[in-house]
């Protein structure tokens, strides 16, 4: 009886000690965490990031949250620390990324709402259980480069069967409704950058104090499980058959090209390429597409009809991209598509 009581007491002490220790380290801020864990590099990055005023606990969870997973993870970290088996660089797991998603939404509500309404909020279920697509293009590991890039494992760990013959099912059913392209695909929270300027009435525009490209913008590289800043991503050289195609120098496009990529020959419209040619050649993806929602309709009116005399109803005209036969496809509509007899030369202004 005495031994049993002692055991219960020990177990209770252990259960209470874990959150108590977590709370102790949390109270010291990120510096306390980085002192005892192998988080020095991440901590230094965070110190110079645009999120430096946000405590670690806001994104990574806290001791008082009551989450069993959080405490279990901490216990496993201590074990790894003592055994010297700490992975480096420290990496977040699939579940960690998905948990962070909700925390991003806590502050960036508008961006989150826009992303939720756009195609990039697609779930694992919609992407990987699409029978029509799977029959046409059997799922392979390379799919995970752009869809479900945070998933730890190959396509066979995610989907069963990984072939053109269905029926398909997700091996981890809890992923079904989770986003396959979450915030962390294009944003890295620890990237050095300025604090977001708070705009006040009468103050100069906030854009004057901000970087032209937000420093968090970068691609989550699945191979290295690290975010690569957009400044290190290349813009491809594109060709329309033998003609070099002008591309906007907007560096943010490099992020789009990673997944909406041409095939190796660099031909426009090959593979998943969306490089604009024709009358829209040289425009950046972001000239037309909303950053988070990817909608374009509203952007047409910013240039038309001021820049054209065609009097086209740009808000309602057929710009469908899915229809390759559409003459008005904005990615490659040419002057000749509307002027088959030849483009009229502009009249010279009378002096």
């Amino acid at each position: 009886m005495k031994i049993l009581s002692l055991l219960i007491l020990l177990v209770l002490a252990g259960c209470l000690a874990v959150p108590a220790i977590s709370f102790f380290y949390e109270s010291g801020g990120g510096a306390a965490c980085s002192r005892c864990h192998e988080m020095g590099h991440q901590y230094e990055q965070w110190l110079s990031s645009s999120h430096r005023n946000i405590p670690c606990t806001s994104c990574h969870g806290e001791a008082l949250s009551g989450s069993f997973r959080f405490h279990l993870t901490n216990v496993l970290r201590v074990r790894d620390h003592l055994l010297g088996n700490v992975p480096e660089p420290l990496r977040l797991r699939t579940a960690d990324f998905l948990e962070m998603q909700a925390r991003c939404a806590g502050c960036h509500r508008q961006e989150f709402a826009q992303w939720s309404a756009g195609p990039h909020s697609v779930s694992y279920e919609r992407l990987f259980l699409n029978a029509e697509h799977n029959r046409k293009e059997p799922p392979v590991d390379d799919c995970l480069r752009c869809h479900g890039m945070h998933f730890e494992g190959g396509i066979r760990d995610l989907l069963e069967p990984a072939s053109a013959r269905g029926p398909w099912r997700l091996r981890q059913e809890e992923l079904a409704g989770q986003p396959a392209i979450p915030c962390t695909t294009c944003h890295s929270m620890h990237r050095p950058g300025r604090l977001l300027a708070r705009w006040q009435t009468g103050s100069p525009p906030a854009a004057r104090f901000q970087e032209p490209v937000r420093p968090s913008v970068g691609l989550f590289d699945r191979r290295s499980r690290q975010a690569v800043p957009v400044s290190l991503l290349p813009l491809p050289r594109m060709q329309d058959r033998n003609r070099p195609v002008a591309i906007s120098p907007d560096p943010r496009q490099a992020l789009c090209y990673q997944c909406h990529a041409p095939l190796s020959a660099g031909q426009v419209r090959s593979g998943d390429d969306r490089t604009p040619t024709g009358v829209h050649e040289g425009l950046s993806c972001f000239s037309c597409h909303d950053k988070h929602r990817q909608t374009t309709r509203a952007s047409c009116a910013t240039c038309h009809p001021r820049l054209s005399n065609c009097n086209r109803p740009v808000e309602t005209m057929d710009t469908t991209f899915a229809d390759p036969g559409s003459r008005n496809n904005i990615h490659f509509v040419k002057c000749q598509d509307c002027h088959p007899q030849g483009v009229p030369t502009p009249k010279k202004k009378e002096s």
Partner: protein
Amino acid sequence: MKRRNFLTIAALTAASSCSRTSPAPGLRVLSGKEARTLEAWVERLIPTDQDAGAREAGVVHFIDRLLAGWLKRKRQPWKSALEGIDRGAFLAYAKPFYELEPKRQIALLEQMEAGKASREAFPDDGGKAAFELVLSYTMMGFYGNPRHGGNRDYVSWQMLGVPAVPVRGRRHRDEAALVENEKPNSSSGKETL
């Protein structure tokens, strides 16, 4: 257990833990002195010029990480190499290696490369093995993928013009387009819309 035995074991444990050289801040295995020596060494192998060198690429961090993991059981050659080069520097110039002028550091490294360094510092082969060991891992840390701990911020890839992540289409190669491109005045490229 008797109190005397307990105290003896506790004292011995404390003494043994104190005698270990603790790693430098931010590192796991290398002590402060070892890290300084290694940094000076790799800096001479890939110096900083108009482009970043081994120092900026975090090669010391890369090697330290390996010594804590994959090379855990092969630390001795590294310890010997770092002790040897410092001893060689002391014998020749009465200073540790990291305090020497770059010219003297290079001279010492050239002797090691040729296997002609002081036998007192490197009894086996005059420093040739130590030189090759550090050179090979410096190159790995400088040119390898940053996920392994070196090549910080892709500095060497930026120097070489290698993209951090290349633009890669779904099927990588469009055979039909390649064939079409080889034909002059080709009018039909494969378009996958």
